[in-house]
């Protein structure tokens, strides 16, 4: 019984720790968007053609945050 309680405790702590990964993803997305804006303000005429690249970059940065969310979900429901 104590073992089960310890396992449940570990699950919750692990799920909470997994959420730290969101911070890294947030920095990544902010970095992409901020650099895009800095570049777009220097050369606004070239900005419109690069929005697709912007979204691809954001998607790649965001995927790793989603992975940490997935780890949290797996710990809560699958382990």
């Amino acid at each position: 019984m104590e073992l089960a309680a310890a396992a449940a405790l570990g699950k919750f702590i692990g799920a909470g720790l997994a959420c730290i990964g969101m911070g890294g993803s947030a920095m990544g997305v902010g970095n992409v968007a901020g650099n895009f804006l800095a570049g777009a303000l220097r050369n606004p005429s070239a900005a419109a053609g690069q929005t697709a690249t912007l979204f691809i970059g954001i998607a790649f940065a965001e995927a790793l945050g989603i992975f940490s969310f997935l780890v949290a979900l797996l710990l809560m429901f699958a382990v």
Partner: protein
Amino acid sequence: MATAEHSDGLAFHPMDQFIVKPLFGGETLNWYTPSNATLWMAVVILAVIALFVLGTRGRAIVPSRIQSVAELAYGFVHKMVEDVAGKDALKFFPYIFTLFCFIVFSNFVGLLPKAFTTTSHIAVTALMAVAVFLTVTIVGFVKNGAGFLSLFWVSSAPLALRPILALIEIISYFVRPVSHSIRLAGNMMAGHAVIKVFAAFAPLILISGIGVAVTPLSILAIVAMYALEILVAFIQAYVFTILTCVYLKDALHPHH
């Protein structure tokens, strides 16, 4: 997912909305059982048909409102495929447009109250991502033969680095279907779960004094999150489609 243990926490569990249930009672789920997932997928497909078949039936020179929406969607994806993947990728346009329509409609239909978001299940998105992965790999080998492998051999890098880069490229190539599917499913699941978490705080006003402060904040948060989710629903469909185009470009033109 466990159903018995969460009676002590929130009033309803934020993940309960993702459980696939048979529509007409019963407990067992077979592949032929009509469930809420199949119901909402059917709704999505009917909505796509309603827009693109019934909406454009008039074929007016001056389009009606619904016809111009259909034309805008068609032109949007057509331009995306042409810009990102190149002109010779346009023969894959029907496939990509089908993917885009299904994803964008199921994301938006899933935002209706009480609806089931089919794209929040990794089973659904993984099927689409693996289909894209297989298509792209087969097209790459058919078009370029063994030359497709030059995708992994970065010829612009110094020779000593190339084997290491090749290893990294191969790993990232095989992670593609994983990240491609989990990005969409994770975004949809997380957004809907957040809305439900705030919704669970809303009825606090009925049961405790602190609710006077919490409930209005919670309702505001639901509205804000819902607005964000409308944005995310579109952006994730866009991202899934544009990544398909990027992978297709790699398959058609593998040389760096």
